[in-house]
């Protein structure tokens, strides 16, 4: 597939749109269908597409495996960290009302932050698992 001109150019054109769409899905998740889980998977799919077309090494130069591993752990930390911050502000664990003066705004910020944590974890995990499977297949050849 790496020699196919149309596939190479097509993948290159489509990737920015996939990434933008993932961000849209994340930030629009409050108003329509979507959220961190879906956005993370779509973002990982963009890199999987690039890896399928351009090869694993090319993608790992852009997004090294250590970065994917760090993302997987960082997302959980963001999620749990939001809870700790609301506790330090004197509310319950994950009580987002503490994050702004208006409880509704607090909820909004809290949900966005927490969903961002989910996005980062899901993106990191999916990319990492894909790297592991694809990398092991490459080593045997």
């Amino acid at each position, binding site marked *: 597939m790496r020699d196919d001109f149309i596939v190479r150019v097509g993948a290159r054109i489509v990737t920015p749109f996939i990434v933008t769409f993932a961000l849209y899905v994340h930030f629009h998740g409050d108003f329509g*269908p979507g959220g961190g889980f879906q956005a993370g998977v779509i973002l990982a799919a963009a890199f999987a597409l690039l890896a399928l077309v351009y090869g694993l090494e090319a993608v790992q130069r852009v997004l090294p495996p250590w970065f994917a591993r760090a993302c997987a752990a960082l997302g959980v930390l963001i999620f749990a960290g939001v809870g700790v911050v609301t506790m330090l502000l004197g509310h319950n664990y994950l009580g987002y009302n503490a994050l702004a003066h208006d409880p509704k705004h607090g909820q909004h910020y809290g949900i966005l932050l927490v969903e961002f944590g989910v996005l980062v974890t899901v993106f990191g995990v999916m990319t990492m*698992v894909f790297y592991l*499977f694809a990398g092991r297949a490459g080593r045997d050849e």
Partner: protein
Amino acid sequence: MIIDLFVSHYNYWVVILLMMVGFYTLISRGNLVKKIVGLNVFQTSVFMLYISMGRIKGGTPPILVEPKGTGKGHGGADTSGGVEMMGETAAEILYSNPLPHVLILTAIVVGIAVTSVGLALAVRVKEAYGTMEEDEINRIEEEMEEAEWRRGRGEIIHEILGKFPARRALTAPSGAEADA
């Protein structure tokens, strides 16, 4: 009566059919990847059962429709007739149950994570045994166990023979052969 029962229970029956197809794949096929696919089919059928329960006849997806009058600023250019209409429908609009959706949403992502662990295990099994078929793995295991047992029995015989010096001299050549 029968038609009513069919219409109101068709979902459940298809869910059970899918569940049984997945279950059958899981217990009757020896290939590990096929088993994982069967597990996925089973899993999706459970998702469908939950979503079926959350559905309400004539409902809409659980995304709140704001009455335009109290809306968040946009839509101010609407005519008053539109406002009336929106307010009226928003008051008696019927939403589907959001709770099963939330549970299944997270379950899908956890499901793919678990599937990837299963696939990783299958890959390691293939590397260790050279096959993914359950029957062959069992055969290899049995052969290894038998060989192990035979070797263990041989050691016990040697030990027993070792207690009788005279016999030991008698069987020494074969014992030496086994050691070599």
